[in-house]
């Protein structure tokens, strides 16, 4: 009998397609005689278009059409909702108003990419610009934000001000994180085609059904008339979750010209046209008794959003539960600026919030003369401070213990600049990681045809997360067949529905649906094999047979056996079932949350004020691990993101115009191979069976959380300089360093 493969380090089933170049991403879709679309974007941040001169652009051989508000098909603005997730309340190319630098204002359509690009460069647009506000400092009044996707953005318990004022030891520090840009390697792309009144779209999206509902709303179509396909996504990290205007624009251009349209964002457009993580300013006030027991946590967040969207970076929410404390106040305010709309970027809120809180706790530990890990242990939250509920499964203390042992934490000496090796200062830092365990209704379909071909289908996605692989593993085990033989189809709105591939919810949502679908097919096969006259198993009872190696056998006579294909032949049609799964009452009874511990080591060369990351360890409590190989990769990736956040990434705007000046990959620094050390990952592997029948919690986002704090704390430990403003650069370290003679 084939051994179960769930829980084993299974190679990716889409690996061959990805290493040979056969995997087809959105821009690889083939359409007959397409038009190439190149977007032209506003170069002022606020004002109106005065005039567009198309003559030079139209003279370029190969240019077929130029679409502007003058001739664009009419579409209406859409308010954001989870049913119709349009990121911006801005109908594209409908009027002359400009709301931010980088807003789409025209699209040039040509028979070749080269001609479209040349036409776009020659399009002359004159603007009447008015002074723009692109920095939080430009704004005097802030909006108070009350909600973030159903969670209160203003929270309060106990008497935090009084508890803070009467605490034996206090910290009052303000931390800043810059605007960041997702920059998946795959630029967003939409290839759109109308077949009569039916729209078919290849879109680089984390949510085919979200893109479909946005297109349905924009063009007033029902769901049978729109199909969105996205089998491979070249990274998303949130910027391909909600829908952005370019997807509608491609469909509008295809309608205008009557031809398939290929629209791919240029890298610089990825900085303006599919979201970013907004900057944050976070004031943390912590109060503790002299033994380290927390008495007060006050977390005040100022962030920024656009004038055409609402997204908020909810950095303060972690302070309601990450550590135990009876007196807590969290506030969020936002500035409306003439900039594009921010969106969810890997762990929105948790990435920025665990940075600020994780650093403040490190500062508090130093004030108390306590080891920072000991402070975290002493303030462990046994129940969820936000809801007051027990956790379904929480093993953070075990993460701390295993991490400390693996990292060798007890060899750390407390004083900054007290550890040296080979002429460099060595610093060690620690911080807590966390991300909610989310789950949404999902469906999947399993089909086994008379030739024995097994297909598994769901409108979920594999962004590199391993979804293709883990659901093949789940289905293979449930059917008793080799998971490698299963054909998995994802990323198509025509398949059974699944939620957005975001919020780390896909595994917990889709894998139970796959398990259910497989169980239903198996039941159906049993019914046919035992109930059909002429079947070698006819007349046996269920407990007298068993599935193994893809065959159903009689227990007392293994020669009496049928394969799934033979059972389908008996039935005269494929075996097929749609299964589903959804969250239940556990959401009201328990707090569902993952935790982890991040340990980092840096080395600091004081002569150059240069920091290098030399070791990183993450220990995570994410429930059952379905595939340790792909799970480890997810966590390594999250830690690499934390390295980028701590030391490299910053989207810089021109303060006068709001234009992004770091709008390319030479000026927006992503971690490269030489920036990344060996990374160690451990899982505590406690199945969370209250959360879902597989016991697995999501892993997409927790990996980045806490990393920037652990790194910043390690930098302080190495250098003695506390930089509270990311990214930590040599200039900032030099500015904070003691003057030496």
């Amino acid at each position, binding site marked *: 009998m084939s051994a179960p493969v769930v829980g084993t380090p299974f190679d990716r089933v889409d690996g061959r*397609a990805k290493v040979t*170049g056969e995997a087809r991403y959105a821009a690889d879709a083939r359409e007959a005689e397409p038009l190439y679309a190149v977007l032209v974007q506003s170069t002022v941040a606020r004002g109106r278009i005065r005039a567009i001169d198309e003559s030079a652009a139209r003279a370029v051989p190969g240019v077929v059409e130029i679409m502007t508000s003058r001739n664009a098909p009419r579409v209406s603005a859409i308010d954001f909702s989870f049913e119709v997730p349009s990121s911006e309340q801005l109908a594209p190319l409908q009027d002359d108003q400009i709301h931010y630098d980088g807003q789409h204002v025209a699209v040039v359509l040509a028979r070749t990419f080269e001609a479209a690009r040349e036409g776009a460069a020659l399009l002359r647009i004159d603007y009447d610009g008015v002074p723009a506000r692109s920095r939080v400092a430009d704004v005097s009044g802030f909006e108070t934000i009350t909600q973030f996707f159903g969670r209160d953005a203003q929270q309060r318990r106990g008497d935090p001000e009084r508890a803070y004022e009467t605490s034996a030891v206090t910290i009052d520090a303000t931390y800043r994180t810059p605007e960041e840009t997702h920059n998946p390697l795959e630029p967003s792309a939409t290839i759109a085609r109308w077949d009569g009144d039916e729209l078919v779209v290849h879109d680089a999206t984390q949510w085919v059904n979200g893109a479909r509902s946005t297109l349905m709303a924009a063009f007033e179509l029902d769901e049978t008339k729109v199909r969105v396909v996205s089998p491979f996504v070249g*990274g998303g990290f949130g910027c391909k979750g909600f829908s952005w205007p370019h997807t509608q624009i491609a469909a509008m251009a295809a309608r205008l010209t009557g031809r398939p349209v290929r629209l791919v964002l240029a890298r610089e457009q990825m900085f303006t046209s599919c979201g970013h993580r907004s900057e944050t300013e976070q004031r943390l006030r912590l109060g503790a008794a002299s033994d380290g027991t927390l008495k007060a946590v006050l977390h005040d967040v100022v962030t920024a959003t656009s004038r055409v969207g609402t997204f908020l970076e909810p950095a303060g929410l972690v302070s309601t539960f990450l550590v135990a404390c009876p007196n807590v106040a969290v506030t969020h305010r936002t500035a409306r600026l003439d900039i594009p709309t921010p969106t969810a970027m890997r762990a929105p809120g948790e990435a920025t919030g665990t940075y600020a809180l994780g650093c403040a706790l490190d500062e508090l530990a130093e004030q108390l003369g306590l080891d920072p890990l000991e402070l975290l242990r002493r303030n462990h939250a046994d129940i969820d401070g936000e809801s007051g509920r027990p956790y379904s499964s929480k093993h953070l203390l075990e993460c701390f213990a295993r991490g400390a042992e693996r990292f060798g934490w007890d060899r750390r000496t407390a004083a900054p600049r007290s550890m040296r090796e080979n002429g460099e200062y060595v610093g060690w830092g620690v911080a807590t990681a966390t991300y909610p365990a989310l789950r949404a209704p999902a469906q999947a379909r399993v089909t086994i045809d008379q030739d024995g071909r097994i297909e598994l289908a769901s409108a979920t996605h594999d962004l*590199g997360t391993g979804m293709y692989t883990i659901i093949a593993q789940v289905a293979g085990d449930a059917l008793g067949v080799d998971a490698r033989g299963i054909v998995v189809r994802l990323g198509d709105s025509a398949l059974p529905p699944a939620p957005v591939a975001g919020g780390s919810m896909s595994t917990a949502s889709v894998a139970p649906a796959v398990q259910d679908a497989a169980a239903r097919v198996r039941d159906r096969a049993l019914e046919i094999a035992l109930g059909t006259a002429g079947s070698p198993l006819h007349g046996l009872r269920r407990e007298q047979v068993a599935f193994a190696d893809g065959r159903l056998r009689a227990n007392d006579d293994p020669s009496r056996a049928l394969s799934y294909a033979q059972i389908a032949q008996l039935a005269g049609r494929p075996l097929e079932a749609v299964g589903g799964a959804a969250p239940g009452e556990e959401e009201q009874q328990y707090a569902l949350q993952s935790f982890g511990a991040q340990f980092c080591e840096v080395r600091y060369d004081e002569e150059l004020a240069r920091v290098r990351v030399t070791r990183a360890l993450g220990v995570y409590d994410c429930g059952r691990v379905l595939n340790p190989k792909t799970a480890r990769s997810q966590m*390594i990736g999250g830690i690499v993101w934390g390295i980028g956040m701590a030391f490299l990434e910053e989207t810089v705007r021109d303060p006068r115009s709001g234009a992004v000046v770091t709008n390319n990959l030479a000026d927006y620094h992503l*971690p*490269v191979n030489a920036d990344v050390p060996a990374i160690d990952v451990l899982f505590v592997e406690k199945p969370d069976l209250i959360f879902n029948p597989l016991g697995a919690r999501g892993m997409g986002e927790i990996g980045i959380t806490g990393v920037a704090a652990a790194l910043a704390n390690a930098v302080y430990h190495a250098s003695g300089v506390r930089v509270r403003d990311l990214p930590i650069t040599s200039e900032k370290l030099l500015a904070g360093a003691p003057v030496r003679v």
Partner: protein
Amino acid sequence: MRTTTRPPAATDAAVSATFRINGRAVPLTIEPNVVLLDLLRERAGLTGTKKGCDRGQCGACTVLVNGRRTLSCLALALAHANDEITTVEGLAEGDRLHPVQAAFIEHDAFQCGFCTPGQIVSAVGMLAENHARTEDEIREALSGNICRCGAYPNIVAAVRAVREAG
């Protein structure tokens, strides 16, 4: 500094040339401003090579030109009409994967897979250059290929395994 796209203009009429791609002769008629990456993807139907930035900053478009690692987004196609061009589609021999391809699967050296063709072609070129021996040298020699998913430690493990297998 802020960059904007200002393309070369097609000042001359299209010309015919035969390209040698993955051992096959590919005759095409193209304008002089077509870059090699767009020729591969849009004219030759070879979409394995990816466009991540179109300005030589990410490495996703890496191909081998006469065995040498080359950023195809920065190469005018007609300048390479007589060169031997190898893309990710040209590495496997039938069903048999190139050792670097097989090692990438075994070591899980990718996630989304979009940078992977460039990473693999770059690694094949780097191994032929025969200078990167230690892990630090491999990291340095592959730092022109950005992986936003952050698979770097696994990429290094895969390349090192191929190197050690000889």
